[in-house]
């Protein structure tokens, strides 16, 4: 079942994360074209090679429907495969496997996967406060008939912070909790970020005490355990084996994937501490014929420290309930024995909206391709990548393998 490993990531581009207030403003279509050109240049391929498109639908600025057609027209390309992916933080992971599957089906040879996340310029009639109104309820629907509008928002259940905090609190009650271990996740990632030229927190190191002394946002989560939203955006080119051989770097073949979702509010999970990633990772490892111990690096979606902890456990890098001890006993930096989020993770690299999940995909590719500069791992052939959307409600896994 699944992929045969005949499609590979062959190129990537990612805007340097910047504060929204100072980042350039560009139309989303313009960013799509710009990111595509950069990713193609990275791959050594040309625009006419692209015949597939995965793009974000939600929050696309110039349209809320017909997004792929508008983007293809703007790019001046025709495609045999067009997909809007709407999976929050696991959109990037979802795009990569869909692209690989389409290529293995033989319907296309090179798929542009892209999410623009810089702000678009305001038009003369645009109301800047409209965005504030839209942001008021975070990612929640206020539509009549939406269950969350009726049963969550009136109680103040909104945004992500409190949802993840409640998962952490439940975990603490079931398995115990070591604040220092949670802080160490952020600290080790911050150490790696010092070796990434684009990381938003490059130049600012962090200690466990810094994390524990930072403001408590929602017990037990401190502000330094929570990602900072930034402007950015990314594109990745997934190509067939034939095209990959023509591309200029070392390709990262997609040998396994998994995806799992079943609720939006984790309150309705069977067990809040058993994440959907468990099933996704089992599928992905089985498909790739690999085990967690085979991985040379793990790029784990990290909107919060608790996301990382549960992902490590549920992917099988350690046993359930052992995550805190695992974090304390291992060096998670790019120099360590368990290299994880070697770009700093989104916690230290920055989270560019739903393109944030691309930071893990791009880092996995760059490590395999030998493009990771100062933070390059000596040996990196096989990498685990995860994505998490919503409040640990939609999750995906990729296994990437160097040629």
């Amino acid at each position, binding site marked *: 079942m699944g992929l045969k490993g005949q499609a590979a990531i062959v190129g990537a581009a990612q805007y340097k994360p910047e504060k929204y207030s100072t980042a350039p403003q560009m139309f989303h279509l313009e960013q799509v074209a710009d990111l595509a050109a950069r990713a193609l240049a990275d791959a050594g391929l040309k625009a006419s090679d692209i015949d597939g498109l995965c793009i974000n639908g939600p929050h696309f600025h110039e349209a809320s429907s017909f997004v792929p057609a508008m983007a293809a027209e703007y790019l001046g390309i025709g495609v045999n495969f067009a997909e809007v992916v709407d999976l929050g933080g696991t959109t990037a992971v979802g795009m990569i496997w869909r692209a690989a599957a389409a290529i293995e089906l033989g319907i296309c040879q090179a798929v542009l996967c892209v999410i623009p996340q810089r702000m678009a310029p305001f038009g003369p009639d645009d109301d800047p406060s409209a965005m504030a109104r839209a942001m008021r309820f975070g990612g929640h629907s206020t539509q009549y008939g939406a269950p969350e*509008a009726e049963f969550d928002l009136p109680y103040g259940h909104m945004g992500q912070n409190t949802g993840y905090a409640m998962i952490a609190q439940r975990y603490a009650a079931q398995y115990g909790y070591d604040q220092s271990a949670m802080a160490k996740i952020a600290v080790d990632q911050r150490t790696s970020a010092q070796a990434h030229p684009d990381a938003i927190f490059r130049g600012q190191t962090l200690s466990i005490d810094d994390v524990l002394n930072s*403001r408590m946002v929602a017990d037990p989560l401190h502000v330094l355990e929570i990602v900072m939203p930034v402007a950015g955006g990314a594109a990745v080119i997934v190509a067939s084996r034939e095209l990959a051989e023509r591309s200029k770097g070392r390709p990262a073949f997609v040998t396994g994937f998994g995806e799992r979702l079943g609720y939006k509010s984790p309150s309705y999970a069977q067990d809040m501490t058993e994440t959907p990633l468990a099933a996704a990772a089992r599928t992905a490892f089985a498909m790739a014929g690999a085990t967690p111990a085979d991985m040379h690096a793990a790029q784990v979606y990290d909107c919060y420290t608790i996301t990382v902890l549960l992902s490590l456990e549920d992917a099988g890098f350690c046993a359930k309930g052992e995550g805190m001890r695992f974090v304390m006993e291992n060096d998670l930096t790019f120099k360590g024995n368990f290299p994880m989020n070697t770009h700093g993770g989104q916690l230290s690299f920055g989270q560019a909206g739903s393109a944030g999940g691309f930071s893990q995909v791009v880092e996995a590719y760059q490590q395999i391709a030998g493009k990771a500069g100062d933070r390059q791992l000596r040996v990196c052939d096989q990498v685990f990548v995860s994505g998490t959307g919503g409040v640990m409600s939609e999750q995906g896994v990729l296994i990437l393998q160097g040629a």
Partner: protein
Amino acid sequence: MSNKPMPLATPISAPFWNGLKEGRVQLQQCNSCQQWTFYPRRHCSHCLSHDLSWKEVSGAGTLYTFTVARIPTLPEFAGAEPQILAVVELEQGVRMNTTLVGLAPDDIRVGMAVKPVRARVSEDGTVLLRYTGADVDLVERDEVPKAPPAPAADAGPARTRIDVKDIDALKALVSDQFSDWSNQILVDQALIDDFARLSGDDYWIHTDPERARKEGPFGGTIAHGALVQVLMSRMQVPLSFEVTGFTNMVNYGSERLRFPSPVPAGSLLHSRVRVKSVEVLPRGTQMIMEFNIHVVGQDRPAVINDLVILYM
């Protein structure tokens, strides 16, 4: 009414909300597989059967998890009590998102027994299902916004007296820093209706709650900007100074008057002020005071009024 999000019942969920108004907690049970479903649906969330019955339950359960939101999830949720979000697992096995009341954060434990608290949150009778400890003496409470008491006449800090001829001292008052907040006042529909009659501005967005809810952009009626502006007179701002020694003090009008954000009916308002400029002009000493009126909990002002005061 307030600008907190309120549940809008659908034909599917109405029995749940109506039951709460009448003092009952009701859940749907499947007649095919006997499992319970929450939130309300047209089908069983276990077997997709459409054969469901509403059953009254005690509402009792255990605390599945919780968190104390140290930063309120919306400004409107800031208040005297901490915002404690929770997930409760009822005896029937379903879970609900809710909030805990009547409990100190340190007394809350995952797994503790909890019981429902009916919280009346709106004049229209809407009841939310909050929770508290099983042994806490609390079954219902009234959370409908009420007009706060007027402040005592001598409330506020001691004021430094500054003679109007002491221009340096007056100029030293100029600051970017605003004063502390005034007392709070409630803007309800009755007050808005009174102002509509007085002013003749009876546009539906102010006076027709039903139409404003359906057609307006704010989910309900809003107060007239002009009304909110004059309500300044009901708010006592704790000023740190008092100007003395003048023959006459004139309200010379406004240098700038803006209504940057709407004031929904049912809002609590408060205000604060800063001295923006002091100038000696041929007609007298002119002080511009920037009054900002805010809906309580909102960063963006509802009214900005640069009031010009002439001391002669």
